[in-house]
């Protein structure tokens, strides 16, 4: 099972190694050694993290590393796009730089792969096996690279793009390392704050005075979807910058050549090579797209029951038996749907690790009410992919499901229908209604 989980990581590490060998001209062996060394370092580092820290912080650190690599890619991309203004530099060449880059890339790949092992304890053996496999893959990639035709050129920025894209793809396979979903939330927050601040500083009138159909468009900027689109922009812009930098690199000056045919030949060769240099960057775009897809449609198996329709007694009491067709105390999440007067509300009941039943809405205070599913030890918000540990379900705040008042009797759980409807209305309204700039 674990091995199957690791296959995509192994493949992406092999591809990373292959590109590293092709991208750096400093000698195949050195790149392979420093890459594998980095991989080993990353895997062992991850093991140390998992032994020393609680899983959330360990994952947080690895995710932070991924975030830094995305930032670095941004830096590389911006510099590449500025390249025409640049005099040629030699900073980014030389053995030391090569070793450092290969080592860093290996380190991240190792850490990401190793984090998949965290579920099965912290014994050393599987990590050592992973490291061996990583080294073998890197050497194999080095051998394969010899057979790849020479026209397949990997420039510095494209190399960075491919490596980071593959790392992010690897991270998107694991819910706890996924970067895209949290980025979505941050971007949403930023967009909201920024538009708000902009309107305040430019003294732009609030929605009271603006035409409502125009406000609909402005409201998009405050909406939930803006987070997704904004995150896409942050995700793909560096790649587009790199593609732009390659595609619009100025043609070489041929004015000193006094034969038209020769001038044209040089230009044609340049244009021809440029086409090939685009391939890795476009490949990176594909990989990142896959990462976004994985992040939005995670392949993790959730416990995601279909909501059961419940009704209330005439006095507005919803009763759910403790042991009926469904055993409330089996530790699984049980979803219910209640309809009243054309409106409906969802809630779920779950028994926490402490052995107490909890009743919460199937929605949180900040996200679109896409609901929750259950994964190992946690429930997950389908909208923002936040994992909520089971022992905090029932507390309010953040993306936690909104707690619901209920009374627990011997035979089961009683919920007041009015409370439920009101609670649902309040929650869903605050998350779906377009908020005004001034609140």
């Amino acid at each position, binding site marked *: 099972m674990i091995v199957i989980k690791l296959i995509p990581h192994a493949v992406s590490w092999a591809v990373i190694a292959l590109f590293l060998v092709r991208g750096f001209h400093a000698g195949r062996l050195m790149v392979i050694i420093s890459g594998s060394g980095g991989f080993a370092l990353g895997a062992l580092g991850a093991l140390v993290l998992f032994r020393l820290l609680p899983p959330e912080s360990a994952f947080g650190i690895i995710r932070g590393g991924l975030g830094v690599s995305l930032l670095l890619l941004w830096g590389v991309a911006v510099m590449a796009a500025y390249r025409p203004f640049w005099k040629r530099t030699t900073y980014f060449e030389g053995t030391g730089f090569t070793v450092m880059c290969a080592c860093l890339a290996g380190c991240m790949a190792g850490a990401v792969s190793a984090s998949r092992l965290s579920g099965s304890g912290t014994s050393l053996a599987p990590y050592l096996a992973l490291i061996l496999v990583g080294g073998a893959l890197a050497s194999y990639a080095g051998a394969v690279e010899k057979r790849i035709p020479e026209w397949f050129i990997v420039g510095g920025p494209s190399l960075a793009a491919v490596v980071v894209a593959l790392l992010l793809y690897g991270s998107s396979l694991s819910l706890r390392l996924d970067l895209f979903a949290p980025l979505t939330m941050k971007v949403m927050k930023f967009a909201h704050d920024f538009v708000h601040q902009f309107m305040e500083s430019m003294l732009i009138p609030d929605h009271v005075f603006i035409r409502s159909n125009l406000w609909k468009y402005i409201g998009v900027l405050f909406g939930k979807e803006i987070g997704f689109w904004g995150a896409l922009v942050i995700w793909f812009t560096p790649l587009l910058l790199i593609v732009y930098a390659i595609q619009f690199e100025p043609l070489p000056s041929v004015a000193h050549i006094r*034969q*038209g*045919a*020769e*001038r*044209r*030949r040089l*230009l*044609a*060769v340049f*244009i021809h090579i440029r086409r090939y240099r685009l391939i890795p960057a476009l490949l990176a775009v594909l990989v990142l797209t896959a990462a976004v897809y994985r992040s939005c449609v995670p392949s993790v198996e959730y416990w995601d029951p279909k909501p059961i329709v419940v009704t209330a007694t005439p006095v507005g009491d919803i009763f759910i038996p403790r042991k009926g067709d469904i055993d409330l105390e089996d530790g699984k999440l049980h979803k219910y749907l209640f309809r009243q007067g054309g409106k409906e509300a969802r809630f779920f009941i779950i028994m926490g690790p402490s052995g107490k039943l909890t009743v919460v809405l199937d929605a949180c205070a900040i996200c679109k009410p896409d609901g929750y599913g259950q994964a190992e030890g946690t429930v997950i918000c389908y909208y923002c992919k936040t994992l909520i540990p089971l022992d905090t379900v029932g507390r309010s705040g953040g993306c936690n499901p909104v707690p619901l008042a209920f009374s627990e009797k011997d035979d089961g759980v009683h919920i007041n229908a009015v409370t439920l409807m009101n609670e649902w209305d309040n929650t869903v309204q605050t998350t779906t209604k377009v908020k005004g700039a001034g609140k």
Partner: protein
Amino acid sequence: MIANIIQTTGLTRSYGDICALKPLDVQVPEGEWLSVMGHSGSGKSTFMNLVGGLDRPSAGSLSVGGEDLLALTEDGLARFRREFIGIIFQQHHLVPYLTAVENVMMAQYFHSVPDEAEARSALERVGLGHRLKNRPGELSGGEQQRVCIARAIINSPKLLLGDEPTGNLDHKSTIMVMELLRELRSEERFTVIMVTHNQEVAAWGDRTIYLDDGVLVRDERANSR
């Protein structure tokens, strides 16, 4: 000593039973203007096609401009034709719906990238500066052939092949074309090999070889001119 741009030993080309070119040994020094004569079916075109890389010999060795044409791959041969050879045929083979400039640019495109200013100046050099935007149908035979010359020399070939380029022209146009070719050769210093049936045209060259049934029967060096 001038290097030989073309060197063949035992060059043979046969089509099934028909042997169009018997084992042939020729050397052409760089910069020479060689005329090739012989009656119809004697293998002149076959020889030209081999030298121009349009066809591959059945046996023998053939080196053009230092390249062993038998050793080249298809891609290599294509690059060789692009960068080394210019050809003018009896039929002009111009694209009828493109203008003169566009026809020349077409050759640039297949070589590398089009360059209109250069195409224009090439046409000006062959004296067609005033007919840049005309289509082949609107040009006389002599003018068409001059467009072909512009097209043949646009990529600065080392070797210009002509397969009866003046075959369809009257006397006056023939003279004009030949004079133009000579002028261009003095500037660009390419080697010319020209197949012709016309004794007078052949006389423009430095040397004339005669083929008969695929065999080189005579090799004459002109003493004047």
